[in-house]
């Protein structure tokens, strides 16, 4: 199914429109019969003589990104129906958030999207700051933005490496590009080690600002590392972009209809590769994004190759943004609230509910926080709901699989870039 025709236009009163009633409401038939096949169709409604093979790409598999179980119904090598099963990495993060105070939640939420942890911290602390109406100092905003952009580069590097693994195998060409991208990622992780002390899972953002300030010489070192990375991007492109095998595997594979993507709530590179120009950094600027221009790359093809192009372009764009911001970090404090000495240091307004979202490398990562109404529990949120973009992206899988080879399913799944930590939380 390609479904690349433009989205159905708004329905106007017309004699040719067929109307039907759904739940007592009169709706046009067009709106409830989408142009794509229904992936949840009962398997018995398929050809009963088909003799389908049920292949379980189980939770342990060299190339489902994390623990994802996909039950495939195969007719020979063509997939007829696909049922993903989630929840193998569920750790009860949102339940934990109901018993931990605001300052203790950050290191727990860090582990959701374990590939770009500062995004999680940023999203949740932005929500907390909105809840208690705290101002974040400008220097802290700059540090947050720079770190977010460098995390984006790191995440896309990891994606490129694992995408190569999916296609080429760990012993083979994929292994080579995997090693090359991880070599660059090490440079970024060293930068974060200098800043926060940890290579991963930093706990560096806090309500009201940051916990670690930039050490002397970090800005210069970061600029140098980013310049090196920019040069290496060309090498990756050389490795994959013009390679006939890569193009043969990704062009035309896993095409995502923009209307379907919007219906499923997908955002980020997947949506942008299908032609819809939405980017929270530019449309709803947060942190220091309001102070610079962001060029958002989009493609129209919607296939895996387009997603690859969008992500590599985003990498370059992030390097540019980070380099520009590094030139002019304002002086000042990095926190606006008294630094945390007690678990209950941060208290929120009772019963207030806010939502704050950021643009993570996978899409819109948002947190919905409700403050506690009991006075004794003011330091603990009543509910933290985390909206993870990978979960919405995985909803695409039943639509992408039917009619495709097993190899194409792997490539399409890889290009969706799901991170199971944030899918299952």
């Amino acid at each position, binding site marked *: 199914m390609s479904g690349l025709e433009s989205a159905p236009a708004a329905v106007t009163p017309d004699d040719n429109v067929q109307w039907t009633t759904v739940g007592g409401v009169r709706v046009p038939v067009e709106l409830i019969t989408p142009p794509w096949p229904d992936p949840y169709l009962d398997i018995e409604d398929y050809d009963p003589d088909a003799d389908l093979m049920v292949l379980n790409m189980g939770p342990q598999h060299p190339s489902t990104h994390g623990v994802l179980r996909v039950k495939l119904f195969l007719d020979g090598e063509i997939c007829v129906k696909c049922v993903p099963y989630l929840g193998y990495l569920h750790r009860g993060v949102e339940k934990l958030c109901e018993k931990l105070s605001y300052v203790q939640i950050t290191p727990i939420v860090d582990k959701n999207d374990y590939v770009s942890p500062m995004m999680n911290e940023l999203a949740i602390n932005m929500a907390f700051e909105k809840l208690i109406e705290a101002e974040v100092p400008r220097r802290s905003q700059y540090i947050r933005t720079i770190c977010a952009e460098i995390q984006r580069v790191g995440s896309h590097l990891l994606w490129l490496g694992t995408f190569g693994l999916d296609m080429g195998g760990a012993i083979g060409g994929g292994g080579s590009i995997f090693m090359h991208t991880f070599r660059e990622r090490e440079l970024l992780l060293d930068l974060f080690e200098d800043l926060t002390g940890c290579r991963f899972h930093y706990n560096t953002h806090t309500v009201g600002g940051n916990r670690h300030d930039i050490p002397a010489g970090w800005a210069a070192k970061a600029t140098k590392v980013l310049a090196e990375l920019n040069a290496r991007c060309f090498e990756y492109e050389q490795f994959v972009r013009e390679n006939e095998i890569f193009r*043969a595997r990704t062009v035309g594979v896993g095409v995502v209809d923009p209307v379907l993507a919007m219906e499923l709530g997908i955002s980020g590179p997947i949506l942008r590769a299908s032609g819809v120009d939405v980017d929270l950094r530019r449309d709803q600027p947060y942190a220091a994004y309001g102070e610079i221009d962001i060029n958002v790359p989009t493609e129209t093809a919607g296939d895996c190759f387009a997603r690859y192009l969008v992500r590599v372009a985003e990498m370059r764009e992030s390097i540019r943004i980070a380099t520009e911001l590094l030139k002019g970090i304002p002086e000042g404090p990095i926190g606006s609230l008294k630094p945390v000495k007690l678990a209950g240091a941060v208290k929120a307004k009772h019963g207030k509910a806010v939502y704050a979202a950021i643009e993570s490398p996978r899409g819109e990562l948002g947190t919905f926080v409700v403050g506690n109404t009991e006075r004794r529990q003011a330091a603990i949120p009543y509910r933290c709901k985390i909206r993870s973009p990978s979960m919405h992206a995985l909803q695409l899988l039943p639509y992408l699989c039917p009619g495709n080879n097993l190899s194409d399913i792997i490539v399409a799944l890889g290009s969706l870039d799901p991170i199971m930590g944030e899918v299952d939380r």
Partner: protein
Amino acid sequence: MSFDNPWVHGLVMGLIIGNVSLAITGYSIWFERKFAGRMQNRPGPTVVGPWGLLQPVADVLKLMQKEDITPRGADKALFNIAPPLTVFAALSTLAVVPVAPGWIIADLHIGILFALALGSLMVFPVWMAGWASNNKYALLGGMRSAAQSISYEIPLLLSATVPIILADSFQVTQIVEAQLGGNWFAFWPPGPGFAAFALFFLCSLAESNRIPFDIPEAESELVAGVSTEYTGMKFGLFYLAEYLHTFIISLVAAALFLGGWDGPGDNDGFIWMAIKTLSLFVFIFWVRWSYMRYRSDQLMAMCWKFFLPLGLALVMFSALWVHWT
């Protein structure tokens, strides 16, 4: 060396050539890991022995002491016979390949035909392993591999026909002797000779399931393809057969297209055969660690729509060439 008794000759040559090939194949594991490591900016094995030279020994010992598991529901006879049969199919083609003037196990009149026929036996053990494992991943891998191997035999035979026609003989020693003096079949006739060489090379890569044609053992999709359920030394035998087949491809390609033991000027000898074989061998590893794999239907399309017509055209061209010269 001219032993009069062909049995004695064959036995001695077999021992020497066979053992040397197996030793080179064993150490190709070390070499590949070092080479891949250097391409990825890392040292490769360094711990076991100086420069990691004892790594193959460690690998073999490790595989030998692992538990030999047969999955429940597996067809025991087929399951057990598949790995040794793969090695046999790979090793048997060694019988007709000359490594130096006079050094050949059995100089058959139908040498190259014999080699290709035995090489195509490789289809069966892979198919057997895929079926007998009682595992869907292995089944998919086995089916893909069977389809791929059978399809790629045809362009392989066609491209091997080019040196046969140009040298007017099936006997491999005579094919090599026809190239002595510098007119290697890869470069003379210019153009199509190289096309025939490239075609032979790519088709043999496809026959032995190497990247970029290794979809049957695509480990990102099929865990380990046909060898998913094999443990211990049986897995080791599959592994060995793959490397052995790669080595033999390089030998055969060097003999058929690159002039065998032909050296510059008058010094022919074994050393030139070794250099050509090993450089092809290294090139195969280089390709393996650089490219991703094709999808299986793209593989098939490439074989039937591109390689096969090219092979036919090359055969016709070589016939016409022989007629004109």
